[in-house]
Structures are given as C-alpha cells and as structure tokens.
C-alpha cells in the first residue's frame, strides 16, 4: 500500500506557502465507514489526512462545487485546490480538462497509486465482517487486506473484497498528477468488461427483468448524479425547472425547458432518467463507481455506464480519461465507424 507521508509533507508545504486555496483529501469517517472526505485549510490539520482502502470516494466531484464557489467569489481566489486522487479519480480530472470545465492550473494533484490493490467494496466488507466493526484496513506485503477489528485481525486476499470496478480497472495509478506516491504497477485485468458481459449473455427478457427490478427500486434521490464528477451541469436535462436562470433569462427560455420525464418516481420515468444519464456519460464515465456506491437502494448503476464504456472501446476504440486533448466520443467520428446496424 502506497504511503502518503510524502504527500502530507507536500500538502503541508503547499498550505504553509499559501500556494493552494485548500486541500481535498481523506480523513476519518464517523458513521461506521473509516474514511470520509476531508477539507483542509490549515497546515496543522494535515495530520488528519489518511489513506487506506476505504478511501473510496471520488473527491473530484468537489471540484464542481469549487468552480461554483469561485464563480461567486469577488474577487475570485484563483489559487489552485490541492486534491488527492486515485487512478480512477485522476481520469475524472482528465475528462474535466477535456471538457474545459477546469484548467490544469486550477488543481494541484496529489496522486496515489492503488498499486496492486484498490478500494474495498462496502457490501463485500460488511458480509466479511458479519456485524463486527472494522477499525482499520491495510494492505500487507502479500497483497492481502488486513482488517483490524475489536476482536482481532482478519486477513483476506484483496480480490475477495475489492470493489468490482477495481477488479476491472484499467488504470490503478493516476494518469495525471503533480506529485505521486506509490508505484505505477498495473494489476492484470483478465476481463475488463466481465460484469457487463454477464448481463449481455442473458436473453433479452431476462435482461429486461433484471433491469426492471433494479430500476423500479429507484427513489430518485439523485444521489447518483450528485456524486458524479461528470454530472456537473447546473441543471440536469431531465429536470423540468430552469435552475440556471438569471435576471436576464427570458420567459421563452424558461418555457423552453422540456419535461423529458415526469416527477413521479414511476418505473418508466426512472428508466428514462437512468437511460439519459447513461447515454450522457457515454465516453465520459471513468468508472469511479460512485453512482453505484452512493445509491441507497444498491442499484448496480455502474453496469449501465460500463456498458457504454465497453461499446466505446469495442466499436470506436475510444478510451476515456487518458488524454485531455482527445475530442469527446460523440463529437468525433471515423469514416469507418461500424454501421452494420443500419439498413
């Protein structure tokens, strides 16, 4: 497991020198999960930073808040924000750069390699603990998770508890950073789209039954889009209100908003919402798995996004989050894009 001592020192220096506005990292959680997002402004608070396999959150999401905040500051504090990122999170930064949502100078990236491990899956962990409370989780030299509980230590091979997305990860170290901790070792991935292929192999009606059951559960709390670093729109297209109005928004513009879906959390409306979200993440989702993790009903949303990641790769040889200069998936084409589905 990568150590973050060097990053902490870097963070302390950055804060001492006033080179960053604040630092977004991980600190101790309080609600039963060891880690939680932590925002640090004072150098002395740097010691509160932690790094362990429960640092599951994609902190890049908070850059969206930062952009909104900066927009209101008068005059804006243009210093960068320091941010801790894993491999997947760093790819979210790449996409934000690609889409000009942020500039490279807006962030000071403190990268951490997951090396051969990754983050734990909360459900798998809960099952393993069977009611016990975990105090710390570490990765030992033999690439096992060491779970420390009040009742002693439990050692588990990482594969057993890793989040599904980590098992299918294509970049377990940051692809963009200012400082990096840990080695750029890549874990071999046999089946980068294994989870999607499992669903694909089902007959059409079983696929429908699977998704219907899942999506019917949705209560439209919109945690999925709230946690997503790519869902940075001021107003989601499925919302019928015009959030992004200002004094000069005309009545026509307000009336021009379309009710693509209704507010009722009815199965059809939930489905359309999730389809819209999935298609809008096509070629943009970097598989941080946050949508699925935060879902209070455990809808496997990652599988929707992963499907389009798979198609982008297989149909268009497009990989998301590695090159900030790449045009977006849907704003580019090749003359020989497949068209066997067209009559």
């Amino acid at each position: 497991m990568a150590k973050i001592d060097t990053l902490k020192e870097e963070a302390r220096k950055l804060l001492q020198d006033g080179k960053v506005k604040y630092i977004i990292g991980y600190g101790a959680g309080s609600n039963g999960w060891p880690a939680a997002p932590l925002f640090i402004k004072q150098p002395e608070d740097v010691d509160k930073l932690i790094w362990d396999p429960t640092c599951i959150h994609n902190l890049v999401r908070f850059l969206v808040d930062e952009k909104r905040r900066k927009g209101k500051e008068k005059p804006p504090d243009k210093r960068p924000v320091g941010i801790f990122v894993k491999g997947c999170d760093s790819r979210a930064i790449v996409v934000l750069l690609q889409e000009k949502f942020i500039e490279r100078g807006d962030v000071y990236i403190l990268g951490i390699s997951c090396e051969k491990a990754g983050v734990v899956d909360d459900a798998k962990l809960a099952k393993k603990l069977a009611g016990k409370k975990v105090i710390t989780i570490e990765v030992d030299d033999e690439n096992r998770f060491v779970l420390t509980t009040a009742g002693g230590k439990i050692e588990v091979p990482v594969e057993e508890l890793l989040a599904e997305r980590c098992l299918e990860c294509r970049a377990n170290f940051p692809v963009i950073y200012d400082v990096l901790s840990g080695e750029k070792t890549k874990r071999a991935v046999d089946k980068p789209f294994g989870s999607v292929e499992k669903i694909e192999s089902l007959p059409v009606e079983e696929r429908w039954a699977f998704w219907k059951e899942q999506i019917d559960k949705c209560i439209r709390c919109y945690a999925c889009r709230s946690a997503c670093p790519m869902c940075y729109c001021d107003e989601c297209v499925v919302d019928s209100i015009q959030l992004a109005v200002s004094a000069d928004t005309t009545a026509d513009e307000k009336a021009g908003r379309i009710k693509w879906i209704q507010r009722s959390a009815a199965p059809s409306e939930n489905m359309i919402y999730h389809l819209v979200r999935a298609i809008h993440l096509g070629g943009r989702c970097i598989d941080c798995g946050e949508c699925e993790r935060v879902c209070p009903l455990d809808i496997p949303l990652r599988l929707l996004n992963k499907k389009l990641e798979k198609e982008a790769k297989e149909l268009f040889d497009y990989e998301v989050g590695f090159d900030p200069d790449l045009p977006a998936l849907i704003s580019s084409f090749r003359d020989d894009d497949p068209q066997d589905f067209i009559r």
Partner: protein
Amino acid sequence: MKRTGVFVCHCGINIAGTVDVKKVAEELAKHPGVVHSEDYVYMCSDPGQNLIEQAIKEKKLDSIVVACCSPNLHETTFRNAANRAGINSFRCEIANIREQCSWVHKDKPRATRKATKIAHSAVEKVRQNESLEPLSVPVTRRALVVGGGISGIQAALDLANSGFEVILVERSPSIGGHMIQLSETFPTLDCSQCILTPKMVEVSKHPKIKLMTYSEVQDVTGYVGNFKVKILKKPTYVDPAKCTLCDECTKVCPIVVPNEFDLGLTGRRAIYIPFPQAIPASYTLDDKNCPDISTTIACGKCADVCKPKAIDYDQKPEVIEEEVGAIIVATGFDLYEKENMAEYGFGKYPDVLDGLQFERLLSASGPTMGKILRPSDHKEPKEVVFIQCSGSRDPENHCAYCSKICCMYTAKHAMLYKHHVHDGQAYVFYIDIRSGGKGYEEFVQRTVEEDGVVYLRGKVSKIFEDKGKIVVWGMDTLTGKAIEIDADMVVLAQAMRPSKGAQELAKKFKLAMDKDGFLAEAHPKLRPVESVTSGMFLAGAAQAPKDIPEAVAQASGAAAKAVVILSQERLFHAPTVARVTNNLCTGCGMCVAVCPYDALSLKDGKAEVNEVLCEGCGTCTATCLRSAIQVKNLTQHQVAEMIEACLGG
C-alpha cells in the same frame, strides 16, 4: 393563447381520395389553440390562398398549418400568403399529407388517422415557431483567388471581367502553373504555351486584377462576404519595373541549382526567370540558394552587372492584409513523389522519367529544344516504354484513385514520340484505357492505329538497368505471355496528388479534405464547386484530378458561384440558426467540435454562434448534453411536442 388555423387541402382527389379531409379538419379543430380549421379542394389555387388570407385576418390567426403536399412544392406559396395576410412567414408550417400519406396508403380510416397526426404534429411545431426575418450582412465585393495555374487564371479573369476586383495569389515567381510546362495538349495537340500565354498576359494587364506572385496566404479569418486575409509577399530582390530582362545577371551568378520548371532536367542560377514568358516578366533572386543574402551579400555580382539597378538586396518580406467577400482555391496538383516509385527505378535511373519531364523534352522551348533525347547520354531513344497508373489505382501500395488524365496524356506522349522518332517503338502498359471525353477515344485509336503504338494490357513487375538498357519486365494479361523489353527510356504516368502544402493551406482556410488529401466539395453531386465553408469555392485539380477543359469549366463555375455572392449588396441567410442558452452552457466545446461550418466558437467560456455561418443542421443540439444550444424553430421542445402529437390519439 395561441390562435392557430389549419387548412386541409383535398388536392382534388389526390389527398381526398384516401384521406377523409373533412374528418382531419374536424379532428384538428378539437385541439387546444386551434381556432380555425377548414378544408378546401385546392389550397394552392388563388381562391384557396385567398381563403387562407381571409381566415388569418378575420379570425386573427397568429399561425397557420397547411396540410397538403410536400413542403418542397408549396411551402413558399403558403408562406407568402401568410405574409400577405400580415403574419410572419415562419409562422406557417406545412403538413405533408400527400406524398407521405395519401399517395402511399389505401386504407382510408388509417390514412385519415395518420394525416391527423401529421397535421397535429405541425400544429405543435408552429405554435412554438418564432417570427424571424432573414439575417443579412454586407458584402465586401472583391475576391481572392489562390493559385495561378490555369484554373486560378480562368477564375480570376471571369471574376474580373464580371467587374469585380480580384487578388490573385501565386506562390511561385510566375503564374502559369503546370499547364505552362506542357508541350501540346490532347486531343487537339494545341501548343499549350500558345493558348495559355495570352491569358497570362491578360491577367497581368487587367485593371481589376491585383497579381501577387511569390506570395502565400498566411491567415484567413471572417466568414462569407467578409473574409480578412493576410498575404505574405516574399522578396524577389528585383524591381520588375526597372528590370529590362537583359539576362546579364544570370550570366554572372555563380550558383547553379536544379531548374524547377524543367523538373531538374536542366539547371538555373540563384537569380533567374522561371521561363521566358513568365508573368510577371521579371527576375527573382532565390534567397534559399543565394548564400547568406539575409546577412551578408555573398558576391553581389548580379547587382554589379545590373545596369538599370533593379536589384535591391534590402527587400523584406511583407504581410499585406486584404478584405474579400469570396475566395476561390485553385492550388492544383503535383505528381506523386518519385521516392514512392522505387520499384520502377524512378529517381535511380536517369532515363526513367515522369510525364511532366517528358513534356519538357517534347516542348519546343524545352531543354532539348523539342528533340527527344535521353537525359543520360543525349541519344535518341529507340524503344520507349510508357507505364500508366504509376501510383494510381493501387490501394495496397499507393493511391487508390484513378488520376484520370494519364490515359490521355500517355497516348499523347506515345503519339508525339512517334512523330519525333519515326523509327522508334513505343509501348504502353495499361490496366485499361479510360478515354471518356470529347474526341478522346478517337485520339487513343489514332495513337494505336495510325502511329503504331503497342498497347500491352498488364502491369510492369520490374525495371532494372542492364548494359545501358532499361529492362522492363511485364506481363501481357491478354495473351498471358511474359514480356521483356530492352528500353532506352521509360516514362511513368505518375499519379496526381494535391499540390505540396495543400494540407496546411486547407487548415488555414478551414477547408475539409477528402481521404486522399484533395479539397472536399460541399456536395459530390449538387455542390461540386463549393467548399464546405460558405463563400469559399474550389477550382481545378486541387479538388480532384482533372484535365484542362474540366479545370477551366470548374474555374468558371467557381467564379460564377463567387459572383452570386459578390453581386449582392448584402447577403441574406436563413434565420433558422442555432442559439445558445448561456445559463446552461458550460463551455465544454463539444458543439464547436461537431459544427460542420465552424459557425460555433467559445467565447468567455460559452459557446457563441456566428449566425451567418450556421446552416441550422442541429448537430450541435444533439451533441449538447445540457440542451443549451437549440436551432430556432426546430427546438428540442418543439420536437418533444411533435413526438407526443405523432403518438397521441
């Protein structure tokens, strides 16, 4: 509340035969906002139009839908009628219930239901249509022509003769292009120089043409009717006004470099005139080859001998800015690079030539004064092999396309060779002969029948030198026999390529290129001289391989298209263009990337529409993740309502 009127046309029995038009009108009358709905036997007739106009006035309609034939036929008719009655023409929509309904269905109740939905959908659309007026911008009534070959010359002359000022930019020291290098032209065997030089002179003398040779376009900004161009004028170090063409300078110049005009068959000095008839008639000091001209003068000999003192070493590159309303790009072609044809010994054996080099040998003013002599030993070749499709029609190794002119000029070469060397033998290797064109097929027949040129169908597999001969191995696929010819000379009909630098130029002009690097036309059939960028036109071989008459025709076509713009005081443009909702735009730039017309750009982190360039295709709309960009009068909101209308009931 909107007040919409619906007018359902019987079109005699064309619609009423399979659609219950009365029922359609009745159904539409039930829709909220529809305050008038009627049917009539021929809406497009004068009484029909009167009926619409009257209803608009009497019922105070603010929008109308005419359910009738395809909008391609009578949209303008009814929009004009609406206009006459005092409502904006964009508040009239056509519901196509003839071509897309009554003519293709037999089941009357179902066709009626479908017609109702089509009309309903149009009602939903028209209710949200904005009243719009055509956009207009003033036009700079001058043109820029890039490239001084036959296409550029023709285009410039046509424009100038139409009364418009033209700036003709040519990057080499003289206009004339490749055509001026040719000996005689097929199929009439006119002397190329004889027919071209009068045009070149006309260009130089024309009061409306500003000729800028030895110049290159650096940058183009703006849009149709209002382009701003920056032209770099390179120094020639010779003042043409003073130069008397005495040629003393070249005699003293110590530097000799290959002569581009003769494709390296001869040499020239660092100070030179490309060819005797060059326009402008003046010398150029080639600062790439004259040593250290920018710092110290290497020898100064040319200036010393120049009596009129025409040589000025202090000339500097100049950037000239011009405003023009239309641009014609005629940057021409080059032959496929020698280096790529190593298999034919091109570049390795001096007697393996390309077609243009052979043209120079044939030319009465060429290096051999029209005698056909081998470059290696200046002997007359007795056996000459011509190889067609050298680099063309070879998708695996070279260019996939047909270069179009090689069949004809090879026939011409072989024929002219026979005319010069009566006892010589000419062989032509070919894949097949493409001689479409006026008098072309007859010309090829003459080559074979009257001049005894031997045509061998097949490809050459190997060329090598042996005992002073160039041995050509090939296969005659008609007889199946292997062929070996001990040739004295081999002439390769090299593929035509876009001229060097065309790619960078296309970038500067924001022109699209096809997969082979030729400039892309806006539509392969219907807009063959227009580029994808409004106000820019294409002429000659820059767009695709073509022969002289075709190039000239396209140049005149391009000029005519440019005149369409230049003859206007102001340009009008459909107002159904994209509009950005700034509050929703995050400035991701995806719309900018997809816009086929470069009508979108990012300004202060938001997308901005150049309405004059926007054609309203709506690709940006589908790309935007936030629905922040919409095309006026076909917004997503409108389509959403139309979808609902199509499925309702």
